[in-house]
């Protein structure tokens, strides 16, 4: 459940901070993915950690499909929880800093 409590950088999501660190470790070339995965296993168990890995991997792939084809965003998607989570995690600044 998204609660709007962003103080712990978890987006108000259960174990959000752990999941975010695992996602960043997977995507960051120099990050310690084993440490982040261990933390995730401790918090959520192996099955959920494997599921988290699958979701990050699948979105890493589909991001390239969306960007390279210039597909437009669905109204249904932009009205969903994704943008709120990005705001709550402070990722807007990350994107701006890279661009």
């Amino acid at each position, binding site marked *: 459940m998204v609660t709007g409590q962003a103080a712990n950088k978890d987006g108000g999501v259960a174990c959000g901070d752990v999941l975010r660190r695992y996602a960043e470790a997977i995507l960051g070339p120099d990050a310690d993915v084993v440490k982040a995965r261990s933390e995730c296993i401790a918090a959520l168990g192996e099955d959920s950690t494997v*599921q988290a890995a699958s979701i990050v991997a699948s979105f890493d792939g589909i991001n390239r499909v969306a960007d390279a*084809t210039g597909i437009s965003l669905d109204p249904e998607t932009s009205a969903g929880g994704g943008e709120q989570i990005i705001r709550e995690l402070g990722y807007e600044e990350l994107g701006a800093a890279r661009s």
Partner: protein
Amino acid sequence: MQTPTEPLSPAAHTTEGLDRSWGELGRPGGWWNGHERIQIAREVRSARGCPLCSARREALSPQWVDDQSHAVASDLSEPVVELIHRIATDPGRLSRRWFDEAMAGGMRPEELVEITSIIGVVTLADTLARALSQPERPLPGATPGEPHRQVVPETKTERAWVPTVEPGKAEGMLKMLYDQVEAEAGFVFNVARALTAVPEAVRDFFMAFIPNYSTHGDVRSGGLDRTQVELLASSTSAWNDCFY
């Protein structure tokens, strides 16, 4: 129970689709033959360690870095290597101008669509391997044969830079994909249309993608809840500077 530092195995239901998708990499596609498709996959991997791509990603604009060469791992033409490396390593800054310049250079939209599908599959597989500390999959061998080069009728260029097939006009493989997406998500999200100019590209990418990802409808019992899935997806898109 494994110790936390040991590699984890991917879920069986996700492996099957990825295995099938991976097997298609070396077969002739719609617009590239098997050898070329393997070369495209090889370039995706080479791009990750490419000094030029790394320098461009750090630069304020990728156009400002042009004094180096790509780390080339194939016999593909220079424009194709450039295109693969950009999509693989800096997708968030691709623009309509970038697309138009690629088309002006003689590439067909369908060729770009098929390249994109291969990049998507290889990225998904290699990111999953890294996440679980598994070795990268070896690329399959190339199967002889030529691509069919058949233009899909009834495409429109409305929701994307590339032509796409509307769900109401879809037949065969595309109709099955749209029906599956609509059944799971309740609507056909736009990115499901992105590769429809090349039916094999749609099939290969979504065969790998769908089992690995679920935010719509019920998430697997005992697994992550929907908000956790959304957080992971949003975090990944933000990391990639992707609007989607």
